[in-house]
């Protein structure tokens, strides 16, 4: 009896969580623009979506931005994590960790606003139009807010690994750089990958910071959707949202599969 109660409870939670998304997906296949009545299955809104050049550019921008910012923040973040690990002064170390965490704790609206101010000022100093540094500003902003997540994902791995493997590599003839790439990096890879995936999804769906930093000539999908809702929401936005949900779902599935594979490998190894 208790078992059934648990199951019903679980189903309720999932229902609350997913019914809105399922409704959205369902209506993205609706034949008419009605949000109340499902008139029949069609790909009409998808066709409409891809025929709009504006949407297409925004999608392209979003993907370029997400890929670049996740790659850059992963490289910088991994290097930073290694640097923080190697810091000997405990006080300085905790200070650096706090500084790292601030962008994460800080309300996004404040981060976004302050970045906009900074970039406007920089554009002024460089005597350039804000629009012409739009992409660079956006990229820097995205790398900045992704960075702490990468560091927090990589640092525990490095701490766990310790110095012994790197020392063994140095002992066997690796230069410090070789020791990092040949021994340390492969062993902290799961942390690096999950940090990168996190950075990618964060960049993909960021709205608040992009809203402040973005300029008219570099629009991302969240910005586009927002600007459209100001007018009238058309079902092609449902289609777009559906595609995003599917993309995130696939990404999540992929990373979880990789994780569980890694875990079974670890368990199978039976170390200790």
């Amino acid at each position, binding site marked *: 009896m208790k078992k059934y109660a648990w199951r019903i409870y679980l189903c309720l939670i999932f229902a609350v969580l997913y019914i809105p998304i399922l409704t959205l997906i369902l209506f993205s296949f609706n034949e008419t623009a009605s949000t109340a009545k499902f008139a029949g299955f069609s790909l009409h809104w998808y066709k409409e979506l891809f025929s709009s050049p504006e949407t297409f550019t925004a999608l392209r921008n979003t993907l370029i931005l997400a890929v670049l910012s996740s790659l850059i923040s992963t490289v910088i973040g991994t290097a930073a994590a290694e640097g923080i690990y190697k810091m000997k002064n405990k006080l300085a170390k905790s200070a650096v960790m706090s500084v790292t965490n601030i962008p994460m704790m800080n309300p996004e609206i404040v981060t976004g606003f302050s970045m906009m101010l900074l970039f406007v000022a920089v554009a002024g100093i460089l005597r350039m139009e804000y629009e012409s540094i739009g992409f660079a500003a956006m990229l820097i902003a995205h790398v900045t807010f992704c960075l702490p997540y990468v560091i927090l994902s990589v640092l525990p791995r490095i701490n766990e690994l310790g110095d*012994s*493997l790197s*020392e*063994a*590599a*140095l*002992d*066997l*003839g*690796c*230069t*410090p750089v*070789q*020791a990092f790439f040949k*021994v340390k990096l*492969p*062993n902290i890879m799961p942390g690096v990958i999950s940090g990168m995936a996190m950075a990618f999804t964060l960049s993909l769906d960021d709205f608040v910071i992009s809203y402040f930093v973005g300029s008219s000539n570099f629009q991302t999908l969240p910005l586009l959707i927002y600007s459209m809702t100001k007018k009238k929401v058309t079902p092609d936005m449902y289609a777009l949202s559906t595609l995003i949900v599917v993309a995130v779902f696939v990404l999540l599935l992929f990373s979880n599969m990789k994780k569980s594979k890694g875990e079974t490998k670890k368990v199978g*190894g*039976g*170390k200790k």
Partner: protein
Amino acid sequence: MAKLIELKGISKSYDSEKVIDSMDLYIRDGEFITLLGPSGCGKTTTLRIIGGFEQADEGELYFEGTEISSVPAYKRQINTVFQKYALFPHLNVYENIAFPLRLKKIKEEEVKEKVTEMLKMVALSGFENKSVSTLSGGQQQRVAIARALISHPKVLLLDEPLGALDLKLRKDMQNELKSIQQKIGITFIYVTHDQEEALSMSDTVVVMANGKIQQIGTPTDIYNEPKNAFVADFIGESNIIDGIMLEDKKVKLASHVFDCVDGGFEKNEPVDVVIRPEDVDVVEPERGMLIGTVTSVTFKGVHYEIIVDIKGFKWMIQSTDYVAPEKTIGIYIEPDAIHIMKKSEYSGKFGDYSSFSDEMDYISNADTAEEF
């Protein structure tokens, strides 16, 4: 044998605590030398300085006559077998052992030949494609040894490599290590806190305490002629008794004058006298040089461990014959079983078995022990 490594006045501190205090030591080519001491004596730090993982605060380190303090670890012809093996989990057995060769971009056929040869030496042929995490502790140890030896270093450092293995396996690996060392003929510098391991494997033993070398010598020298109370106590069991050197070959202890074989002390100089438990014979009280009361007897397998109270000082005697507790016995000591040491900072700190017998009382009174 030529000096291969030489340490001159090496000192090292961590947070103003001196771990190594102005250490001088040289290591000859091809010898099996062991740094022996209790934990915290600076033996591992010494090894890490030789390996290049730590920098000494003061002093010089010579390798084949060249100062190498500032040479990084990866350029030294010294390899290490780490305490926890430090095998690379992302590589299989073959790739772990081949790792140093891959760095040198050696041709695949040659790599294969060398790795196969190494695997044969450490008796792991056929394990090439196994993941290192599936190996037992002893097997991981052998992979670590093979990996450290494949690029033919001049020196192999071993940092308590057998510490994680069980007793039986440890004994086997001791023999194996010794035979590997003799086969390839390179210098092994071995760090351990296990005195038996040190005595059975080494050509030279360096006993360390508090960051200082207490004694350097062959295992027999260290055991038979300990320099001070610390060494005598750390290596094997010892009764260390205050004595007075009346003249050469005559020492007075527990108000009895003994003949001994040592000399070269001042007249009436206070000394520490070491008598090993196995060198004391139990005799009838009337024939004994000293008379005492047995306070406890413990069966140890090969012998009984007998604690005897002689004028308030508790002696340990190892005997194959059983003696009942509370019995009054005499003891007899041959002159060459008496070893005389100069007084040192360690005098009076070691070699009395009174705490030992208290512990025995505590265990035998199991009922009262519950209350503690």
